[in-house]
């Protein structure tokens, strides 16, 4: 009878402690509760059947769960619902994903709306500095233009077709050496470079924003 009573008391105490710590992120709450549980186990070690009096003494020495929770005030991160909406954990991801998706699928109205929302969130949120906000606003459309425009221009000019099929006029010098073989290379490389820069910008925005989330 005393065994189950002792264990019940311990369980009840640990539940109260966990509830008192409910304002903490779960990893830290679990950390503290685990430490206290180990303390209790060590204090009652050697007896499978701790007497109620021993259990009460150990729990009394540990003290009021609210007093333990009070030790965490002011130095632990704020309660989840005390953090302003625009500074919460999901904001950096939402902004970056909105900007990326809005840019990649720019022909779709839904994506454009998404992009606008991403930009609005970026500017309203305190998680980024002005320079970072400007970067985030300009980088994605700038990249889309940088990829789209040259490919439109080279498709229109058809320079390798001229080199191969047009008759060479004596007063015109057309240098075809090596053009046919290498003209595709910059076209493939340029978008890759731009995408790499965009990935870099996305990562920078995400990490900078996430680093400023209140914790």
């Amino acid at each position, binding site marked *: 009878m005393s065994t189950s009573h002792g264990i019940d008391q311990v369980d009840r105490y640990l539940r109260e402690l966990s509830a008192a710590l409910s304002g903490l992120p779960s990893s830290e709450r679990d950390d503290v509760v685990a430490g206290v549980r180990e303390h209790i186990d060590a*204090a009652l*070690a050697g007896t499978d059947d701790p007497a109620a009096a021993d259990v009460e003494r150990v729990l009394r020495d*540990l003290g009021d*769960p609210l007093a333990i929770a009070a*030790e965490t005030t002011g130095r*632990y991160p704020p309660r989840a619902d005390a953090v302003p909406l625009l500074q919460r954990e999901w904001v950096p991801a939402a902004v970056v994903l909105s900007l990326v998706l809005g840019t990649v699928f720019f022909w779709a109205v839904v994506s454009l709306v998404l992009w606008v929302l991403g930009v609005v969130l970026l500017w309203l949120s305190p998680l980024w500095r002005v320079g970072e906000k400007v970067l985030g606003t300009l980088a994605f459309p700038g990249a889309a233009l940088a990829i789209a425009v040259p490919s439109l221009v080279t498709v229109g000019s058809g320079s390798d077709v001229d080199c191969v099929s047009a008759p060479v006029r004596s007063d015109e010098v057309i240098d075809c050496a090596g053009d046919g073989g290498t003209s595709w290379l910059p076209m493939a490389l340029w978008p890759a470079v731009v995408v790499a820069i965009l990935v870099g910008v996305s990562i920078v925005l995400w990490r900078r924003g996430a680093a400023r989330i209140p914790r």
Partner: protein
Amino acid sequence: MVPGDGPLLANLRRGALEYCVLALLRRDESYGLDIAQALSSDGVLIGSEGTLYPLLSRLRRGGLVTTSWRESPAGPPRRYYTLTTKGTAALQDFEQVWVPFRNAVDRALTGEPA
């Protein structure tokens, strides 16, 4: 119960308690129950033993201590706390600040000349 076990003492503890824990670990690594009992023996440094655990959690997250499990002769394995080099450095910094501070406060209280 120490006289004045209220906000005043709580504030003073807040500044110094973690360094007392680090100092205890500098002498030897130890486990939670042992640390709690050592610090609570005079009732001054620590109010109730449970208040040690948020502090230990903070020290570990800050990289000032690490933990490891060891078998114990009686009962379940115990989690031992060990001071890291970062913790040793933090403790030394505290000692350099604390000792002159403590001396200055004592002198001010007793009216001794500087």
